[in-house]
């Protein structure tokens, strides 16, 4: 990437992270202020056990997640749902951080999660303001065979792009996919979006309500690498320009349903567990209960993710079709203070 073009891209994107002031720099790197406050969220969905267990563990003894000069706050976002080991009480907390919800007046009639969203916005936001936490990691599990996945909401948050690049290198040869949801209709207002640099950590497959040791350890390791990156960044290390292979959300694919809204087919055995593998037109996609195959008829290939996620039956999604993309990450370094 040419210096002039890079500088231009950094300036005009206006998106080094919400509320971050872009510092101009005579060198190639985009500068970011020191990372001072990091939150680690668990229990945004009360039955996704890895994050709940890790956060409870770190709340009791936070040594593992401490880094010099950084306040790291582990936090259970939806204690009501965690108590009942259910995804949510009234409404999905991870869809609740809309401008409407965050500005609605508090009151008795508010759904539990909307009230909770307002509280979290006060504690870790306000969303979009300079006072918001620098980074939030939100820990999730999925019943899908997605392995370790990092979820981003912006293709121009260069701090986040460099962080996921670092994490991917650190976890290799174990793979770590990057899912980018910047789709104007399909993106959603996540709990972590109150921060300047939101990152979703999604590890599967794990059934809801179950804690699996291997999944737990994978998530623990990703958080460790992420915090290592932040520590290195804060110490002044410059991260050179690089590329990140990502999967960009393209469209949601629902199950075939009857007129009553009941599903009439299941994810096909050949597609089941094949997250991140190419799905080509004509490939088997669904299997009806009486054994017939329904092929994928898009103008593919697409790369499916969240294949057969339990929580998405009610959201009309059998899987999300993504497209592969190479994202360019600008060089970054600590802004001089």
């Amino acid at each position: 990437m040419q210096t002039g073009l890079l500088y231009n891209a950094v300036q005009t994107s206006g998106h080094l992270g919400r509320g971050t002031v872009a510092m101009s720099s005579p060198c190639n790197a985009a500068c970011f202020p020191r990372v001072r406050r990091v939150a680690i969220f668990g229990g945004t969905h009360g039955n996704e056990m890895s994050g709940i267990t890790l956060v409870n563990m770190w709340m009791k003894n936070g040594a593992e997640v401490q880094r010099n000069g950084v306040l790291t706050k582990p936090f259970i976002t939806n204690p009501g749902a965690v108590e009942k080991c259910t995804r949510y009480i009234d409404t999905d907390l991870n869809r609740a951080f809309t401008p409407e919800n965050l500005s609605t007046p508090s009151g008795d009639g508010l759904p539990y999660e909307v009230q909770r969203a307002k509280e979290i916005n006060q504690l870790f936001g306000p969303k979009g303001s300079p006072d918001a936490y620098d980074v939030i990691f939100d820990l999730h599990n999925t019943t899908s065979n997605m392995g370790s996945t990092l979820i981003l909401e912006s293709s121009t948050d260069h701090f986040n792009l460099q962080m996921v690049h670092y994490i991917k290198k650190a976890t290799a040869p174990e793979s770590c996919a990057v899912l980018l949801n910047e789709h104007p209709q399909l993106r959603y207002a996540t709990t972590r979006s109150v921060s300047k640099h939101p990152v979703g950590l999604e590890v599967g497959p794990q059934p809801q309500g179950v804690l699996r040791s291997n999944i737990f350890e994978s998530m623990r390791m990703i958080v460790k690498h992420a915090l290592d990156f932040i520590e290195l960044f804060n110490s002044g290390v410059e991260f050179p320009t690089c590329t990140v292979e990502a999967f960009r959300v393209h469209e949601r694919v629902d199950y075939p349903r009857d007129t009553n809204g009941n599903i009439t087919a299941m994810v096909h055995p050949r597609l089941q567990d094949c997250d991140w593998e190419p799905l080509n037109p004509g490939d088997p996609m669904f299997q009806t209960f009486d054994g017939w195959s329904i092929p994928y008829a898009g103008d593919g290939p697409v790369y499916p993710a969240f294949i057969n996620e339990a929580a998405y039956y009610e959201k009309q999604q059998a899987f999300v079709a993504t497209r592969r993309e190479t994202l360019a990450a600008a060089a970054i370094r600590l802004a001089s203070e």
Partner: protein
Amino acid sequence: MLIQGVLGWQPVSELPRRSMGLITLPVIRRMAVCGGTHGNELTGVYLVPELERQRREKGDTLWPVPVTTVLSNPRAVKECKRYVNKDLNRCFTSAILSSPVTDTTPYEVQRAQELNSMLGPKGTADATDIICDLHNTTANMGLTVISYSHTNWVIMHIYKYLQARLTDPRTWLLDSTCINCFSSVEKITKVPVRLILLNIPICDAYSLESVAKHGISLEVGPQPHGVVRADIFNVMKEGVNVVLDWIQHFNSGKVIEGAEVDVFMFEKSVDYPRDTETQNPLAVIHPQLQDQDFCLLQRGDPLFLTFSGETVGYDEEEPLHPFFINEAAYYEKGIAFHLARKKTLVIPNIQAKND
């Protein structure tokens, strides 16, 4: 040598080890297939309407006997939860079935009494002959048949037949209901089939299938709750077809040969190590035990990994077999896994007789 089959527990040592003579038993006249006893165990929730659709399409002659299809817990199914007030599959003891219904009676107790009227009454001559109750587990248990009596020869023979049919992948291709399912052989995987026997007299038996004269649970996993996997669905569908095949075979009057079969007798449950104050688990199932249902645990084998990295090992003298390892629904019941003793039992030749 004729021995009347009894419902109830008899010490294994009283059974002769050689093949027994022929036992005649009444023909099977009625069967029920139940799904959604736990509302988030989705295979049964979708297989029951599929069976109903098959019956509408092909008529009553489709099956060898009339089959009643039941969605056991419709309210829990609607909410995609295990239960609404109380676990339905713990409500079928004789005591609960005969308890008076008041304003505060949990929904599932009332439903259990309705199901007992519909399919029972439990312990009487009017009870349906066979109940197949369909369940899923998050544990890696393949297809597990669960029942109460090791001297119920109908159940023992159904198990033997299921094991023979489902562990041979070639038989899948011959079954016309599955011919559309698989476009090539490599996606057919053998399913291990095992039998678990619970040491409880029938009046204290708490689960739905105990209402029938010959009740079995078909438990298939691993499958997350709230998910329907096609491979698991196809196993369960084939399992139900195989049970119906067996009934046809048995009712035809042919002698069904006995054999030796391996079974797992429930011994006890093991909970997670817990914090004495908060009761929160202090450990997770050890990665070397996770997914190893029905393996043999020897002294010293790893059971749990604490959050501080220590291994808790199996410290009993007798090697036993774990199952229901890391079942989601059992966290609240204080169960990390169950342990069973493996036994070889002899089952006799049987033959149907019309009465």
